[in-house]
């Protein structure tokens, strides 16, 4: 069948088909092993690289595990106060309508403390991209309950499982945002399997193209894991995600 070429030879002679994008720095990510933030970072930067607009992009890091996104995304970035990234993005984008402005936010940041800023940026149809990493928990502060925490799910502030009667249902904020005319694109994805990573990247690309074409707000929700917060191995947490998160937060386009 095929010629008997060694891996070493392939590395020398073959085509390079995948390597770290230059729009990610060389710094080692500060995330826990297997944390989905890494993939979400990478594909966002890959999209900007492929569009050739890395030097025209301004990213907003949230407060959450990805607060240090600016250490890893090799572009201009601002660190926003907890929940306020969409307001910060508004401030930038209104003054630089030609730049590519995006926020990168967790579920605590976007759907708890930052709900107001999120909704009103979307309602104004700010021409920005929101990358929303929903891991159903406050990762950075040690695994407290988020508004997106599932029913019965254990967290450090729901140690006996989230009780809907006491704290309400996991909020489907992306569905709510999709109702707003200012939002041109709302979609939910995941990054724990190769195929899903490819799809998510496509969605991110579409979002930035929307921005280029001045269509309004695009929101990409990425359902992700938090191994530390969920207290599972990375592999286990991805299985758990598939079985438990996805039924509540089904993947696919919600709008646009």
């Amino acid at each position, binding site marked *: 069948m095929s010629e008997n070429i060694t891996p070493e030879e392939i590395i020398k002679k073959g085509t390079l088909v995948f390597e770290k994008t230059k729009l990610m720095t060389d710094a080692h990510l500060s995330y826990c092993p297997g944390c989905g933030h890494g993939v979400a970072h990478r594909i966002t930067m890959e999209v900007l690289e492929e569009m050739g607009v890395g030097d025209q992009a301004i990213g907003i890091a949230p407060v959450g595990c990805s*607060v240090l996104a600016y250490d890893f995304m*090799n572009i201009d970035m601002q660190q926003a106060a907890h929940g*306020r990234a969409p*307001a910060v993005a508004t*401030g930038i984008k209104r003054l630089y309508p030609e730049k590519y402005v995006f926020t990168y936010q967790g579920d605590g940041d976007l759907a708890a403390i930052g709900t107001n800023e999120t909704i009103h940026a979307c309602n104004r149809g700010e021409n920005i991209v929101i990358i929303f990493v929903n891991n159903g928990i406050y990762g950075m502060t040690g695994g407290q309950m988020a508004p997106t925490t599932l029913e019965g799910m254990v967290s450090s502030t729901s140690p006996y499982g989230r009780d809907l009667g006491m704290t309400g249902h996991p909020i489907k904020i992306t569905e709510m945002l999709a109702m707003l005319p200012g939002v041109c694109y709302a979609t939910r994805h995941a990054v724990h399997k190769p195929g899903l990573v490819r799809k998510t990247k496509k969605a991110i690309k579409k979002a930035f193209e929307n921005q280029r074409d001045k269509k309004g707000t695009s929101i990409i929700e990425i359902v992700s894991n938090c191994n530390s917060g969920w207290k599972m191995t990375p592999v286990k947490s991805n299985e758990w995600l598939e079985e438990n998160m996805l039924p509540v937060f089904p993947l696919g386009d919600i709008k646009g």
Partner: protein
Amino acid sequence: MEEIKLMKGNEAFAEAVIREGVDAYFGYPITPQSEVIEYLMLEEPYKRTGMVVLQAESEIGAIHMVYGAAGAGKKAVTSSSSPGISLKQEGISYMAGSELPCVMLNVVRGGPGLGTIQPSQADYFQTVKGGGHGDYKLIVLAPASVQEMADFVEDGFKMAFKYRTPVMLLSDGLIGQMMEKVQLKPQKARLSNEEIREKYGSWATIGHKPEERTIITSLELKSERQEKHNHKLQAKYREIEKKEVRLEKFNCENADYLLVAYGSSARICQKTIQLGKEKGINIGLIRPITLWPFPSDEINKAADKVKGVLSVELSAGQMVDDVRLAVNGKVPVEHYGRFGGMIHSPDEVLEALEKNFIK
């Protein structure tokens, strides 16, 4: 110089903001300063200069829009009144920590809580000592006239960019709502994006190649580095204290008693000087124009020649702390002031002075 106009303090501020070549105003309505955004909207500065004016969803939204714009090297302004300024404290601390320039206006009303919409100077502590968390300082300018509501926009931005630090104009409902003559500066051009890249590109997030990229942040998890950053801020504050103190003196040469008052209270106290003269009481007045840096040295010097110092504020006594710190025990320092939206009259001030130091 342009022709003389009759304007409200709030309107003069807004017009000066346009003429300063400011890039963006973000704000949320609140009495007694809603005229700022109303005037701007009416004037359509996005047509006059391309300036962005946006009514935010809240004061918190507004301050973080300013953060974003300032972090991108733009001249950004926000304004509010007391409760709204309280809501901005986290954002203000972020701006100071990230070393971002901006000009903010607080048209103070009576508190605490929802309080009253009438004039007050009871936000001195919040503004001058630190309403937000952490070791930081705001440069604080206290306008005492409609003219200064306009003039301090330019002065504020000069310092804001020179030191990369937020500047607050501490005004009140009286100065904001009153009309006076004002002479406005001619229109300045807004900086082009190229000029911004030239001037502020080394720190502002305006889109860079990876090698030159910029980051705006106030986070430093390593305490050693955070301390270093704090030392840098403190060094800057020492420099500002050395260079930027501004004050005005009235009748200080041979005064037996010294009033210290800022903003609207300083105007009232000017009349008190006259009333004093009529009664044979020789009163001087120092009006701090910068509340921080505070004119401590001048007050300390002035204290050598007087029998007593009265800090006259529309508050229960806040600036009086700084006056006492300046005087450092040389002579008695007392406080007088109406508050909760009430305004003292010149004769009430005189009476208080007599009661404290003469009778």
